[in-house]
């Protein structure tokens, strides 16, 4: 019998194209989280064009006005429109989260990949260095780094990114160790694929999902960290707003002008919640064990 006859054995294929997507869409918290994040990102992108007022220019005639038709979110201690500042601040806060996590991933993943894949002394040295960085509390590390680099939003992002990096090294490394043992990696070696290509085509794509999930969760941490650095004067620089720095100023007016803290506080809360929900949802959607 000819081998082509075997085609006959192929009856039909199940149609299961976007299983991940449909699982994701079924996951309520992921969808809610995704919607919140999307909303804020939209606000960050187009917000500045919609802002009714200049977010920077003080107006001494309208200091600390409560929310009204004129000023939806009220005004701050220098008479600036809170709503406009919130829109502008979204950009800084979200950037702080996304960029710093991007930095952490861009640096952490290659290190983790190399450590996990090659093992031996390379692994040992990278792992020890990672342990050492983890041993210094995250925020202390970020504070010291940010202070070293000088206070600016960019530097805060770099500092947070570097401080978050070891988590990704560790996560990637662990993940690589699992993936490395998979048959398909051995299969790639069996056809003679060089290590570099195995890492790029086999290991990397398969370690990425949990890293992306961790990434969304770390974005949340990073946004809070930026707020904390702002609290210590090491984040977004005045007069430019970030939610963290607005909150930091607002806490001095907690009594007289509660709206000054309620809006940025809730925004941070919501977006962090959004990223957390999204991350959790992604985790469930990407986890083959979850139904």
């Amino acid at each position, binding site marked *: 019998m000819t081998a082509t006859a075997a085609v006959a054995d192929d*009856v*039909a294929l199940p149609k299961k194209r976007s299983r991940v997507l449909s699982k994701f869409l079924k996951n309520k918290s992921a969808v809610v989280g995704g919607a919140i994040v999307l909303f804020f990102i939209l606000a960050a992108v187009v917000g500045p064009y919609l802002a009714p007022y200049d977010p920077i220019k003080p107006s001494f005639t309208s200091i600390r006005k409560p929310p009204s038709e004129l000023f939806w979110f009220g005004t701050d201690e220098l008479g600036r429109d809170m709503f406009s500042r919130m829109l502008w601040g979204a950009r800084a806060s979200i950037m702080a989260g996304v960029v710093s996590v991007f930095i952490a991933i861009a640096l952490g993943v290659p290190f983790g990949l190399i450590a996990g894949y090659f093992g031996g002394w390379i692994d040992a040295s990278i792992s020890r260095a990672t342990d050492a960085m983890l041993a210094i509390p995250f925020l202390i590390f970020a504070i010291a780094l940010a202070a070293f680099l000088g206070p600016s939003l960019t530097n805060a992002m770099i500092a947070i990114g570097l401080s978050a990096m070891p988590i990704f090294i560790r996560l990637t490394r662990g993940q690589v160790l699992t993936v490395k043992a998979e048959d398909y990696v051995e299969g790639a070696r069996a056809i003679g694929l060089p290590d570099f290509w195995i890492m790029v085509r086999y290991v990397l794509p398969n370690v990425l999902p949990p890293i992306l999930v961790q990434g969304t969760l770390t974005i949340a941490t990073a946004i809070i960290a930026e707020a904390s650095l702002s609290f210590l004067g090491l984040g977004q620089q005045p007069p430019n707003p970030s939610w963290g720095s607005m909150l930091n100023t607002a806490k001095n007016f907690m009594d007289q002008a509660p709206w000054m803290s309620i809006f940025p506080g809730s925004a941070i809360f919501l977006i962090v919640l959004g990223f957390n929900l999204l991350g959790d949802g992604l985790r469930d959607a990407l986890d083959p064990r979850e139904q």
Partner: protein
Amino acid sequence: MGHEAARQSPAEVRHIGNAALASEPPLLSVEGLSVRFDSAPKGVNVVDDVSFSVSKGKTLCIVGESGCGKSVTSLALMGLLPTPPARIVAGSAMFDGQDLLTLSERERADLRGDKMAMIFQEPMTSLNPAFTVGDQIAEGIVRHRKVSKAEAMERALDMLRKVRIPAPEKRLRAYPHEMSGGMRQRIMIAMALANDPELLIADEPTTALDVTIQAQILTLIRRLQEETGTAMILITHDLGVVAEVADEVAVMYAGHVVESGPVEAIFDDPQHPYTIGLMGSVPSLGRRQGRLATIRGTVPPAELMPKGCRFTPRCPFSDTRCGNELPPLGEIRPGHLARCWYAPLEQKRGTAA
């Protein structure tokens, strides 16, 4: 119950057949059991209109390909189906004069591990790694018998002896990870039999084991069954195992029982094309007889499942009617039923069409 009804359903036919073979009424008799999962497309039940029965001291083997619903059927009987997403949509399961499927969760729990017990496929993962073996056996005894922990431990020790575990006193205090797969499966058996169940459901108890160990376990199960007269439902996909232990066989395909009957009848005179294809697919242990006869393709996914006979797309004998109309479970000979429009095949498909 169906017996009073004037019209004879296929299941009743089979009952009569059974009754002709076994003198007493069956211990468990399942009728028209249908289970569906919430995620499945409408109208496609993972287990569809399944009927069978087991008598005291007898062994019923359920065979079929992976995913055909063997485990779901057994879990449904034990009341262990995860609900949701699983839902029992029809059927009854008479056990000791009561319909299992109408009992409350509490009543089911009272039955479980007492009058009916179950052994699972994976000996390596089916024992709790955090507790000693003795603890896990005794726990089931304490739950159902009015005994102290110490008495239960004593009984557990007895059970270990019964399943031929060397140095049982020591093993009682051992953790599962300290034992081999075969040993753990013995523990599982000891646990299941600890309360002298009337019905034992064994879901592929030997699939994960090496041949030599499999032989040990099968022998053990058979011996214990002889001693206690427990009725047993043994699930497997290994025809060799079926041939060795079964009294009755039910062949399942994609949620349907396609053929059932006494073990000799199934092996010597298989009627359903699926059963025949299955037999042809197994390499023989004797000298090589040429290429294997294969069944084409694979089980279709739920959304492509034919309305009629689910084997249609893979069946060499099928025609359009097969795909549209579900054949009844027809009686070929007393007690031997097959769900095929063309059974017996020689008569209906004998000449090359």
